[in-house]
């Protein structure tokens, strides 16, 4: 009885510190081959239990505009399901290039529809798993809370207006459409500065270098209200909706955590978080 307990203890030590304890244990086990078989068996079952398991892991590539809600969602998801989600943030273009070149992502949450579509078309994503997980809302924002972003734009009181590069970011395309709609394309052109993504665009405005600029509402909103400065939530009829699609990647066909995550994104819980961060077309009080 006592002997058995010490053996179990040593096995557990060996599992935790295979190099240090391994030698002594092997020596002992070699003397008693019967016991060795038992130990090996229990080791194997232990390992397979953790593998076939209830809890799985997934690595998710997320467009940077969705950083804050994704973190909240992942924390809730892990608590609710026991699965583990690791988030990786960046621009959709860079992530697409990484996926094409073999990056180990299980799910891709893009800032647009075109890139997940392309992956599906090229056979790198699982057909039929693509869906729109968020509808981006555009806001004109100034870091100065004492003024109105809309008035600054309409009264032409700015030296620089920041937008995301329309070649790279869907929010940049939407910003151009808004300027076009307001008939301000020409007058804003020489004063336009471009961020390579929506995060950098926010930085230009937050640092005061651009008086106003177009950002994702999610960047300046938390719990349903504007966190700092002043924002004009652009009426949805001024631009084409920014549809952000997610897709399951080929390597994750068998990954329970990845499929559960995609389902979770479409749940009621997710809808609540999305609203708090200003995604979707619904009335918001600034």
């Amino acid at each position, binding site marked *: 009885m006592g002997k058995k307990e010490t053996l179990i203890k040593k096995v557990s030590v060996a599992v935790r510190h295979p190099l240090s304890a391994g030698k002594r244990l092997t020596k002992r086990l070699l003397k008693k081959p019967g016991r060795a078989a038992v130990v090996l068996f229990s080791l194997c079952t232990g390992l397979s239990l953790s593998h076939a398991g209830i809890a799985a892991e997934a690595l998710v590539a997320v467009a940077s505009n969705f950083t804050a809600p994704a973190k909240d969602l992942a924390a809730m998801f892990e608590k609710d399901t026991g699965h583990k989600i690791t988030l990786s943030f960046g621009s959709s273009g860079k992530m697409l*290039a990484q996926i094409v070149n073999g990056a180990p992502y299980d799910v891709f949450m893009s800032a647009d529809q075109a890139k997940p579509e392309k992956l599906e078309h090229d056979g790198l994503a699982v057909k039929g798993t693509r869906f729109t997980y968020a509808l981006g809302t555009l806001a004109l924002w100034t870091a100065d809370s004492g003024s109105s972003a809309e008035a600054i734009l309409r009264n032409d009181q700015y030296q620089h207006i920041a937008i995301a590069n329309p*070649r790279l970011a869907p929010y940049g395309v939407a910003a151009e459409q808004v300027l076009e709609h307001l008939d301000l394309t020409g007058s804003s052109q020489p004063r*336009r*500065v471009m961020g390579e993504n929506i995060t950098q665009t926010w*930085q*230009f405005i937050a640092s005061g*270098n651009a008086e106003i600029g177009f950002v994702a509402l999610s960047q300046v909103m938390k719990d349903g209200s504007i966190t700092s400065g002043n924002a004009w939530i652009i009426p949805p009829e001024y631009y084409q909706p920014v549809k952000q699609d997610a897709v399951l990647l080929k390597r994750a066909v068998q990954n329970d955590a990845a499929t559960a995550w995609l389902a979770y994104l479409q749940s009621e819980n997710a809808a609540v978080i999305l609203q708090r961060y200003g995604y979707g077309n619904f009335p918001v009080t600034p």
Partner: protein
Amino acid sequence: MHLSDSDLSAIWLTLKLATLVTLILLVVATPIALWLSRSQSRFTGVVSAVVALPLVLPPSVLGFYLLIAMGPNGPLGQFTQSLGLGTLPFTFTGLVVASVIYSLPFVVQPIQNALTALGKRPGEVAATLGAGPIDSFFHVTLPLAKPGFLTAAVLGFTHTVGEFGVVLMIGGNIPDQTRVISVQIYDHVEALNYGQAHTLSGLMVAFAFIVLLALYGLRRRNKQGGGSWL
């Protein structure tokens, strides 16, 4: 090989930036290097460390703090505004200032090494022959330390051509103003126009290789006693 108008404008802008920055740096770095190589002051260590800082800081970090410092609420920004110059981010002048800071160690260090290797003796000999300090610098020190100055100029130039993180942070991607080659390549890659990215990158590699090859070729010839060059 096809280069668009915006590619050509980025190339031209980059060459303009690098040339201007190199010229400014040669003027700024020479007195610093001279002081560092001659002075007995205990502050030389501090100054050397400050000069070398841009080597250690990630360019995007440096660029981010320049964006804040040069912005309307930053100390540099308030200074330039009080002079009636406005703020520096999103302007060509801003890129020049940032690049001078960013490439400073690449110009100071080769000149400093050359001057240290030269020692005080040539200057002292010139003084005994009646040369003033300025005369002696331009007619004795400078010609003798020429290889160091050439290395410094080439490194400063090529390093500025290759600059990316700082420009991305403070540039704002404005055509003919702040959109340099590296930013243009990055745009092509991000927009999945790999073909155009390959063309521009290939040109950049070829250019850098030729310049560096010329530099090291000259150095080799000089070492073998090929006589004075330049």
